[in-house]
């Protein structure tokens, strides 16, 4: 029996009826990872010994004391620090870095009884949309091994799509959970800014970053978000607001739901297949009692420029901590301290990271601060106001997650602006701080397409409810990629 296509509830049923054990589920996850990794390349450091031991201990815990995620395997994005497991953010500058504490979300996974099987690949410091910026390896798209899995949480999405793990954590600064979820045909949620603690998330752009779940089904996604959410005094930007029961929100009822569909998300550059898949999805939701209208988010076209200025500025500041002194890579070529810093950073960072550090440094430098950084902060206000206004009349906003399905490895890596354009439909959400999910809604040439559902601040419940209604009415989430053919059980 394969566990690869099972949901959390199905796995628990098998465990509770003693048809399998946590130890077996864990072993199968590692067997499948070992069999598929030569093709998929989603994982970095593995945690096999500890996970195997943990699984055996957990099998001894009485059923009555176990929650819905107890004993289930998860992959953790490599920019989330894990005590005792190498954490690199896919950068050379953190090669060999062995964290001395856990991120809050990792502590929460432990509290829920989840088993971290290993760390998953990403674009270096979460900067990229294809996973090609990892220093260590290029993760492949399980649907087509010549295509990228998306990024930056490409390892998270590919590992889940390939059935290596049923759960993964990602992080989303400008689309880094939703875009790879869309490319790999899985479910990825970027929660409201502040919903999940960022303590222990290696910072890229602190005013935009959020950790979120990647899963195969909406219900599993809701369960995982439930486990990682909540106020944390170690993250001063985490919101002190009650966490509702997200799984309870999946009532199947969207009667009277009002959907706004921004015309800007159907503009030039967005592929016909992506548009058609969303139109078809709207029909499904209409049949279930929702209504939709075209709306305008007039500042959408300014989001990309705003984002790259703000995110790069924040990154240039955040990444100044990597100096080779206290941890990570250290140059061998240095006469003076200044040379030491400069050589360590030049040898340790990849090109995209350097590009963004320089762009940010430039935008923050004297003489350019008002023209670039402050201007972008003001435009951010306008973009946020677009959403505030739309949400006065609508419960959710729906559009495609990405303009196109996954592109080929190597196709656009040398063209930063084209690469950045991948995120035009996801970036506005981070600038506003609202929650949004990507769920599978179609295919183009055998590659998945994603439906993006955007909600009001701290209203992940409605986002999940709508996503679940769509999932129940369609079969897209049941399709499996080519890597499943002949894969290890």
């Amino acid at each position: 029996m394969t566990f690869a296509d099972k949901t959390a509830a199905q796995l628990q049923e098998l465990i509770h009826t003693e048809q399998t054990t946590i130890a077996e589920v864990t072993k199968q996850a590692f067997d499948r990872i070992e069999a598929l990794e030569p093709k998929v390349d989603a994982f970095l450091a593995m945690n096999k010994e500890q996970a195997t031991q943990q699984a055996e201990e957990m099998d001894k815990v009485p059923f009555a004391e176990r929650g819905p995620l107890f004993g289930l395997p998860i992959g953790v994005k490599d920019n989330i620090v894990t005590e005792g497991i190498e954490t690199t953010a896919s950068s050379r500058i953190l090669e060999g870095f062995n964290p001395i504490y856990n991120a809050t979300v990792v502590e929460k996974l432990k509290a829920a009884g989840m088993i971290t099987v290993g760390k998953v690949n990403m674009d270096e410091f979460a900067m990229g949309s294809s996973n090609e910026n990892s220093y260590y390896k290029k993760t492949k798209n399980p649907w087509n091994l010549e295509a990228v899995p998306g990024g930056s949480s490409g390892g998270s999405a590919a590992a889940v799509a390939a059935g290596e793990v049923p759960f993964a954590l990602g992080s989303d600064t400008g689309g880094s959970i939703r875009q790879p979820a869309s490319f790999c045909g899985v479910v990825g949620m970027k929660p409201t800014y502040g919903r999940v603690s960022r303590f222990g998330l290696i910072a890229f752009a602190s005013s935009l970053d959020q950790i979120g779940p990647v899963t195969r089904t909406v219900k599993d996604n809701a369960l995982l978000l439930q486990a990682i959410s909540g106020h944390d005094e170690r993250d001063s930007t985490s919101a002190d607001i009650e966490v509702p029961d997200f799984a309870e929100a999946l009532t199947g009822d969207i009667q009277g739901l009002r959907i706004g569909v921004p015309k800007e998300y159907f503009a030039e550059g967005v592929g016909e297949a992506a548009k058609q898949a969303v139109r078809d999805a709207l029909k499904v939701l209409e049949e279930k009692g929702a209504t939709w209208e075209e709306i305008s988010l007039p500042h959408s076209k300014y989001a990309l420029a705003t984002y790259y200025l703000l995110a790069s500025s924040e990154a240039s500041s955040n990444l100044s901590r990597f100096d080779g002194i206290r941890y990570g890579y250290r140059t061998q070529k240095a006469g003076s301290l200044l040379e030491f810093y400069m050589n360590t950073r030049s040898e340790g960072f990849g090109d995209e990271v350097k590009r963004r550090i320089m762009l940010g440094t430039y935008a923050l430098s004297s003489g350019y601060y008002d023209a670039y950084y402050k201007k972008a902060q003001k435009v951010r206000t306008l973009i946020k106001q677009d959403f505030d206004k739309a949400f006065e009349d609508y419960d959710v906003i729906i559009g495609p997650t990405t303009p196109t399905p996954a592109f080929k490895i190597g196709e656009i890596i040398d063209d930063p602006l084209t690469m950045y354009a991948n995120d035009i439909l996801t970036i506005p959400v981070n600038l506003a701080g609202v929650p949004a999910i990507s769920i599978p809604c179609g295919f183009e040439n055998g590659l998945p397409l994603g439906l993006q559902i955007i909600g009001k601040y701290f209203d992940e419940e409605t986002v999940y409810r709508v996503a679940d209604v769509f999932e129940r009415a369609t079969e897209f989430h049941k399709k499996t990629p080519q890597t499943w053919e002949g894969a290890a059980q």
Partner: protein
Amino acid sequence: MAKMTKEEVIEVAHLARLAITDEEAVHFAEQLEAITNAMELLNELDTENVEPTTHVLEMVNVLREDKSVPGLDRELVLKNVKEHEAGQVKVPTILE
């Protein structure tokens, strides 16, 4: 359209503590010029009376009680330090 010169890139790289070669500077100058030109799209918008957004949530000055708590264990803190001596981090010579 702003022009980004090789010299400007070298200056910015220095501010960012990145060593780059002349060849890299030329390459980055081309890319950064294209990127900053694309960013100038924002100049279309009149933002004279718009407040900047630094943070999307309505929270200010998150304070905690002014009480000291023990920090991390020194041995643990030094775990990832490449060179250390007598409980202190070693760095290259700063003063000749």
